[in-house]
């Protein structure tokens, strides 16, 4: 990364160069496959060994191998992009801190790191790094990241800490500490964690699992080097990164040169009297110039220095952009397998003003940056929509994360629940219903697992109906999830999309905003999309309602049979079929009146044309 000017920062990488040693295409493929299976094994074992549901059920973790320069050479296909993508950034942060302190990597070291101003995605995503040595020489790094339940923030849990006033209020900051030094456990570091982290048995157990998983990765990498020789493996990884770079560059080159921009908004703190804390602008300008794409966030709102919604430039903003571009330009469903490694991002430059939401300055708080990152992803997709209409989705629905906690016998229990958003309509396909957002890909926790372990009951978990953005291909439906408390408990929530609905595309309608409702004694209290530290009593219900995705294309062009299917499936009502889609469905027989439909659709299009004129 190079720092270009005082007011703006730029993330960019050098193009690749040919490997030092010639590598034949067969050996390169063989090594690619071996690397992928190592990363998969590391991730698989981490989920099996870990204790908290956030890792083992939700898969909110990452695993990757890096070369000596800290470039990612492979990643685990399980888990989530928002944990995987940042790993090279963590590594660069470790390098920077080691250099400042004159530290060096030694065999048997394990490094713990979570500083969002040194490449970490945010504080709770704690990275563990095992330097890999072969024959006494440093040859690379085995790295895992994972979202931990608690890191000693100002209130329990590690999400919804939206009122943190600075980086210190977010909890423990690990700046490239050696928690094992030359194979010896640094007990003071571990004791410090046990004493300052809630539910520490679980959190520390997960950390131990991360260390064990990293060590498996290191061992396998050494075995690979022994089998093929270091020169060959280095040449192969260089070629694999070059390959991924080539694939991405080809896609960018195929786009028309020019500038494309779009704007989006986050809710911010809807109930805050200070207007600068609400409805902040996210601005994205994309410049396509041959085989390079610049994504410029200039114009994005200034940072909110004393609230936690600022996005780490390296660790969150860059990942939202990389993942979105990869998903659009090298969609795994329509493209050959392309290895996910550091080569992919070489054709992409990212620019943001220092001191903005997208590039905050220390010690601004960042722990609740997740939802804003989704808006960056969504806005970027809308900027690109005009030049690749058949590869994008309409507006994507944002999601919510909630931390629940309580104290039993002077011991904390903490549980984190991840809800979902929904996709916007896509070219040729409706939006995916109730699914994780674009730049993350976690899993929900089974109801039966939650109820078996915590004083919580999920009393409803269903699709939200009749609210998705109408379109030729309609937006995805969000979900409604009711969490009922079995005893007094504490909660904090972060979400977004209560004030700005996912946008429609190419004539599709906007989706619907989401909601959070506290139901207590039959009273319904609507809450904003972010709040920290509320109490709930036994019997209370917290209802999270996801937004629904935007529609794609003119709803009057939607296949009437699909409209009827939605009516039969009780996804939309007969009324919506008529008013939004111009499809007349007989409410009794549940069949389409084709003649009436034709007539109604003709009248509605005429009206639309007249409206435009």
């Amino acid at each position, binding site marked *: 990364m190079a720092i270009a000017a005082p007011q703006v920062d730029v993330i960019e990488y050098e193009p690749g160069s040919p490997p030092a040693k010639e590598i034949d*295409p067969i050996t390169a*493929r063989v090594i690619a496959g071996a690397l992928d*299976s190592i990363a998969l094994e590391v991730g698989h074992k981490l989920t099996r060994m870990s204790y*908290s549901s956030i890792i083992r059920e939700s898969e909110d973790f990452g695993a990757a191998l890096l070369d000596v320069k800290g470039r990612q050479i492979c990643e685990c296909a399980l888990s989530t992009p928002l944990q995987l993508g940042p790993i090279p950034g963590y590594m660069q942060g470790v390098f920077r801190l080691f250099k400042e302190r004159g530290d060096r990597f030694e065999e048997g070291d394990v490094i713990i790191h979570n500083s969002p101003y040194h490449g970490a995605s945010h504080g709770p995503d704690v990275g563990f790094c095992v330097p890999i040595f072969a024959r006494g020489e440093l040859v690379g790094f085995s790295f895992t990241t994972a979202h931990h339940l608690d890191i000693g923030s100002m209130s329990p849990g590690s999400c919804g800490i939206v009122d943190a006033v600075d980086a210190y209020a977010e909890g423990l900051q690990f700046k490239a500490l050696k928690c094992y030094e030359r194979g010896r456990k640094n007990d003071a570091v571990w004791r410090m964690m046990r004493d300052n982290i809630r539910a520490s048995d679980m959190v520390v157990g997960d950390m131990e*699992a991360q260390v064990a998983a990293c060590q498996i990765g290191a061992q396998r990498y050494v075995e690979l080097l022994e089998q093929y020789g270091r020169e060959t493996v280095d040449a192969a990884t260089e070629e694999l990164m070059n390959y991924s770079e080539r694939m991405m560059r080809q896609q960018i080159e195929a786009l028309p040169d020019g500038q494309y921009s779009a704007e989006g908004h986050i809710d911010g703190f809807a109930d805050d009297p200070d207007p600068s804390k609400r409805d902040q602008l996210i601005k994205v300008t994309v410049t396509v110039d041959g085989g390079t794409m610049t994504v410029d966030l200039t114009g994005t709102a200034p940072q909110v220095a004393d609230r936690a919604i600022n996005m780490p430039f390296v660790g969150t903003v860059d990942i939202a952009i990389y993942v979105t571009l990869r998903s659009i330009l090298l969609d795994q469903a329509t493209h050959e397998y392309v290895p996910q490694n550091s080569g992919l991002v070489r054709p992409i430059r990212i620019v943001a003003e220092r001191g903005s939401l997208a590039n905050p300055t220390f010690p601004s708080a960042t722990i609740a940056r997740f939802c804003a990152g989704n808006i960056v992803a969504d806005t970027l997709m809308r900027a690109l929509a005009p030049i690749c209409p058949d590869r994008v989705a309409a507006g994507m629905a944002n999601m919510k994360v909630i931390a629940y906690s309580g104290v039993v016998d002077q011991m904390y229990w903490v549980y984190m629940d991840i809800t979902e958003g929904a996709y916007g309509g896509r070219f040729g396909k409706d939006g995916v219903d109730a699914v*994780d957002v674009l730049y993350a890909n976690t899993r929900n926790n089974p109801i039966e*697992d939650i109820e078996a372990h915590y004083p919580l009951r999920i009393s409803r*978990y269903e699709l939200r109906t009749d609210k998705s953005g109408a379109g030729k291909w309609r937006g995805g439906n969000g*979900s409604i999830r009711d969490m009922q408390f079995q005893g007094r408990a504490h909660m904090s929530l972060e979400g977004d999309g209560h004030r700005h609905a996912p946008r429609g595309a190419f004539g599709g309608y906007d989706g619907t905003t989401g909601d959070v409702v506290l139901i207590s004694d039959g009273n319904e209290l609507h809450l904003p999309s972010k709040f920290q530290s509320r109490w709930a009593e036994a019997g209370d219900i917290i209802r999270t309602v996801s937004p629904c995705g935007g529609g794609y294309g003119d709803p009057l062009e939607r296949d009437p049979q699909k409209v009827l299917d939605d009516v039969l499936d009780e996804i939309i009502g007969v009324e919506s079929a008529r008013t939004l889609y111009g499809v007349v469905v007989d409410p009794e027989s549940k069949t389409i009146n084709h003649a009436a439909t034709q007539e109604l659709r003709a009248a509605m299009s005429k009206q639309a044309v007249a409206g435009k004129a």
Partner: protein
Amino acid sequence: MKLAGADVGGTFTDVIVVDTDSKAVRIHKVPSTPEDPSEGLIEGLRSAGDDSMRVDFLAHGTTIATNSLLQYDGAQVGMITTRGYRDILHIARHQRPLHYSIQMEVPWQDRALIRRRNRKVVTERLGPKGEVITPLEEEEVANVARELKDAGVESIVIGFINSYRNPEHEERARSIVEEVYPEAFVTTSASLFPQFREYERFTTAAINGFVGLKVRNYLVHLRERMRKEGVKAELRLMRSNGGVATEEFAARYPATLLLSGPAAGVLAGAHIGNASGRTKLITFDMGGTSADIGIVTPHGIAEATARDTWIAGYPVLIPMIDVYTVGAGGGSVAYIDPGGAFRVGPRSAGARPGPASYGLGGTEATVTDANLVLGRLRADHFLGGAMTVKPELADKAISNLGSRLGLSTLDAAAGVVTLVNHNMANAIRSRTIQKGHDPRQFTLVAFGGAGPLHAADLARSLDVPEVIVPVYPGITSAMGLLSTDLKYDLIQNEFMLDGEVDLDRLNRDFKRLDAEARAQLKRDGVAEDGVQILHAADCRYVGQGYELRVPMPAGELTSESIKRVWDEFNGLHKEEYGHAFPGNPIELVNIRVVATGHLPKMPEVPPPSAGSMKAAQIGEAEVYFAANGGGLKAHKANFYERSQLPVGARVTGPAVLLQVDSTTLVPPGASAEVLKTGDLLIRV
């Protein structure tokens, strides 16, 4: 007694008939008849000999359930679930099947097993310990069952939250549905597999409902056909867990047949390896489009962990043999992708157009073409000469590929073989090294049309010292059908901590499950002394979400024997994950009972009468192999007719052994010996 095994696959139906008295073995391969698979089965039996219709026992591997799911061709299914949870099947785990995709298909939404209109909710709720929070509203069940019947639904799945702890509501709902709509095919989620994680359990039940009618109808039809043809054999169906079941059981739990075919292959591999005194085996069945891999240890055949099994994009919780399928076969296509990378498979040229050398219009290079170019396959000896291939077309396809890679035709061909072998080796590593098994202690059992051709190279790249190639590599799976027993897996949740074990309850529950299993086996007609019962427990460290299965001693548990269980768990954890956390509290999540009922098996049959080394020798030809220090080298290899090789015969590599249904490659430096079983042992 006459035993028959019939493995009905997508392309071929393989039949083996064995006379346990005379030890005569007859095998036959006929084309499958996908429209009505029973036709091919009967035809296969008929052509296996005059009196083969008079078999006493018929074990059958079928792809009916698998195809129904893969082709999304099943029953109209309805669901009755707890109010408030109508969309569990649709929301799933809210995770995309692909990380980086806009255009992806989401199987559980795009190919819903039960459409939303047919998912009905009723009032009832159980708590996490199985306690009743809200009683079942029986009237509502009857009403929605009627609605589903009126809507034309044929199969009804009942799935309630927390039913894994208490099946009573589901069972009560079943009786109501059966009263209101007796013709319906009914599945309850807890009866199929009582495990927590509602999405996975409901989906497993939905799969059962989806494939159920097809399986049931097929079995009725098959029985009818057998009756007409005068086949009076007892029929047993191969299940995914490596055991067989009666028609009645299979018709009730058809989802347990999903891996019917591949499971038989693993069993056969195990049987063949064990017959030669080997207990650590990698079974390797490679055909035209894919290779199936299974692992056998002294503990038995490796099983898949529940939650690791996905079929057609849906999770399946049922106990299964761990069969790992790789898209690597003789028909796998080799090509260069847009980024310039060289790839082989998983796409296959299939039977049509097939490899370029088939001359049926295929122009892309395949693994078979590469083997022809390297001289490892004989153009004049395909399917024993029943098929002619055109080597010049293979040459052309491979040379086209090579020129784009800057490689000679020979180097490109060797590259294709290297890559396909590598894909398979990776799959095998994921099941051996990554699970703590050292491949150097294993034997590879190679079969299927293409397995014996690739086995020696594959073994070398894995450091596996030896390969066994069965007598009839092409019909090995059918033989596997005659090496199995009736097998039932029973499971009961316990959720006990190691500090506070209730031994009485465990002993009571084991007794109850034992009795249940014995009763089932008795109904199947197994004599008391033919029943074997094994106990195990699923354990994890408290807080973990995945369990490891620990064998438990048979008989009454004592505080001493349970201590050994915890020790064993720590050991297994270390073996499986490379790490253990001794001292951390352990939770005993489930107890399991595996009950097997002895069935008649294939006797040890003498190898086919053979000629002599001299009679076996066909000639010499050039075959290419990798040279030490890189590159390729032509070797003069001896070609043999395998069926003519007598027991004890030794062949040194380079050599190629031909037989009707397969070709075995013995590379330079390796040697092969015909064992007294007739199987071939290659020391690589």
